[in-house]
């Protein structure tokens, strides 16, 4: 896939969005990354990565309804798009092929 470049952190965020199947938002993504990848992140970084991914068309977002949580403030929820799935698959495929080339 020509012209698509996915940064390491972008890929990580995209994976997490995909894993959350539709209800991913800033904090949940950050929590997952901190817990799973054991690296500390800031919310603002997550937000800017999400917006970049949205611009590239790999995720789409919509405003969730008001809930009782967090003082009734709405969340922006993110969902992975078909194109996003393709990119992830492509990169996974690429890695697999390269792994296979590695001598035992």
């Amino acid at each position, binding site marked *: 896939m020509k012209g698509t470049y996915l940064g390491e952190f972008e890929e990580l965020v995209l994976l997490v969005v995909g894993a959350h199947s539709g209800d991913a938002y800033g904090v949940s993504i950050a929590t997952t990354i901190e817990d799973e990848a054991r690296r500390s992140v800031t919310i603002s970084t997550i*937000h800017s990565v999400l917006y970049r991914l949205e611009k590239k068309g790999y995720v789409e977002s919509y405003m969730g309804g008001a809930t009782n*949580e967090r003082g009734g*403030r709405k969340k922006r929820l993110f969902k992975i798009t078909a194109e996003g799935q393709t990119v992830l698959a492509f990169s996974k495929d690429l890695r697999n092929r390269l792994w296979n080339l590695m001598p035992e």
Partner: protein
Amino acid sequence: MNKQEHTPPKWIDDILEWYCSSKYIEEVQGDLHEWFDRRVKNEGLKKARLYYLLDVIRFVRSYRLKSYDEFTQNSNNAAMLKNYLKTSWRALSKNKAFTLINILGLTIGMVAFISISLYVQNEYSYDQFHTQKDNIYRLKQNRYNKGELTTEWAAGCTGVGPALANNFPEIKEFVRMTKSQALVSYEDKVFKEDFTYYTNSAFFKVFSIPILKGDTSVLSKPYHMMISESAAKKYFGDEDPVGKTIRHNGVRDYNIGGVYQDIPERSHMKADMLYSFETFVDLSGEESRTTWDWDGFYTYLLLEEGVNVSSFEAKFPDFIQQQIGEDLAQYNSNIEFKLQPLTDIHLTSDYMMEFKPNGNGEATRFLFIVSLFIIFIAWVNYVNLSTAKSIERAREVGVRKVMGSQKSQLIKQFLVESALVNFIAISIAVLVVFITLPSFSQLSGRELNISFYDPALLLMICGLFLMGSLLSGAYPAFVLSGFAPVSILSGKLSTSTKGSLLRKGLVTFQFIASLVLVVGTYVVYSQLDYMSSQDLGVDIEQTLVVRGPGATDSLYSDNLNTFKAQLINQSDVKSISASTAVPGSQPGWNAGGIRLLTETEAEANQYRVIGMDANFINSFDIEVIEGRSFEEIHSNEEYNVIFNESAVNLMGFSSSEEALNKEIYFWGDTFNIVGVAKNYHQESLKKSFEPLIFRYIPNSRNFYSAKVQSSDLPFTIEKIEKEYKSAFPGNPFEFFFLDDHFAQQYKAEMQFGKIFGVFASLAILIACLGLFGLTSYMTVLRTKEIGVRKVLGATLLNVMTLLSKDFAKLMVLAIVMAVPVAWFVMNNWLSEFAYHIDLAWWVFAVPSLILILILLITVSIQTVKAGLSNPVDALKHD
């Protein structure tokens, strides 16, 4: 969901809400709050709060910022600000005279403050351009004779630099410089150069002076030199000076090895040409490298990083004892070295042989304090006028409060008003500073520049604006906003005693500050007047002094005699004399080891020596009180000397008479005292009389002083120049008038007086403005009372007394408080002068009276108007 225990700090949320567009605020804030909770759990409240602030700052990304429209229209704050500005503008334009007084006062204060700050900043910026400035020190040398400090040298002995550098690893490099007054010529161009020095090649390693051409290594070869850019231009125009030779004092050719950028004006140092020190050694012998007896050599040390300066300095005394202790003991003398940080020299150093007159640190600090006073007086005006006006504004405040204004909104409103006034004032002030800067440069004697890209200046302007807005706005804002609406609207409000007490205190402060400044100015001018009207004991009027020729040949004495004979033939030249020094500066010839022939070496003393021909004493009208003056007829006159009274004392004679015909030992020869001259002021009245010895040296070559009496001075000067050129061809004709030269010594004081005078007038002007505003307001308030009093028969005088009484009391109080302050400060200043006026009662009384008069006139402009007004007008409205 249960209520959260901790929430992020409100003020950080406010920042977020302030900048973040409403499109994003919910998601961003929501996420951040959740994240905050997580942090509280994991890392504790303190850390979470800190991170929250960082997060909020990190979220400032352009796409989440409010748009311009959102900022201006959808925000309540912005709308209110607009409203505040509008009402402030209305309030200000309603009372035009008041506003004008306010703005004028603030503007003048700010102009004074900014101008002085520019000057102070300039004074503190000397020698800051050296990259190694923190490790460069100059050696200051103190010479002691019989335990008494005799001379403090900026330029000490030649041997100390290398001796220290060879023995102390703390020293990285040393630079040695000594002056060469030189007549420099290249082809047909001849100039007398006053700022040329012999130095070693470390000069450019220590000081950050860029080399434009050539190589500094020439400074270790004899008869080689470096030349400054502007000197190169002067002699060589567009030619390349490197490799060319110039002629020094008409005798030696020096090879130019390189060109350096001119040393900045803001340096204590000035050197247009630098010759190699090896040249000096070749000219004056090997001992000029190492001797500790020869002064006049600047020594700069570049120390290693991290050397403790005071403990390094403490090692000097032992080292000196070890090196030359025996010699010192023999003459009962001592020598001491102190390290002067390079960047301190300009403001603290005033010793023998400075490169050029340095600045005065104390006067600079003092001036800065004065500027602070002025700006405070201006702020006080604003506070005073605003609180005085508060009664009028009280109704407005009451109505606003009833309509639902909160206290914080009222405070904001008044702060906005003061910010507006301050903004107008500072804008005008910056403009005025910009326009008046050339005149202020002239007044202060420094080339001052203003650059709006200078962060320090911008910071000062912003600071002045903010401080002014807050300081002058805070009091009125809090007082006015605190009024209870019911009491205002029911008309029960009266001026609070607290407010009027503060007002009185501030007015008294203004009076005190103005009075101290006026007394200061008066004392400075009285002292200057005293010094110029004092009998100097020497006649310096109508005297034209020509500098002696630098380049001469073996026929010099004959040429001099021809020159003198030609001049004295002129009807407009009354007398002409040659000497090594003239009144108005310290004689450069400082001779130690002089004693009575019968005394031991340890009893010898230092004297200043002036060499002169037989006409000098007569033509300067110096009184000889004992013995005789020099006369040409005596065959042995070269071995006769004349003492002044101080020298007579120093040598231990009980009277002038006793000194006559005594023999003294002077540098290996014996001299006979033939006369005693009355003490005269060789130098300014700052100094007491120094012991002087006159020696008969008829062909002295430093100065030729001609007493002239002419109705056409330019013509006389032209004639003298013609004779000079024909007697000493190849030498430039340079002359000055002795009274000007003498007055030069008071230049610093005159400048101080002028600056002081200008700022004292400004302070008084501001205080008057404030007082004018205050009385006009008080008068308006008491219109009815005055009306009633007039109806009941009060005269104009009664009304005026009534209105001025309060201020008069404050004035008296101010005088009582200001006199001790002024006495202390000015006594301190006067103590620098050996001859000074006494601080008599009238020194305080005259300025006080003048100030009282000015202030009363200011007050009376209003009170007379009130006193003359028709009471019917005042009373008919009720």
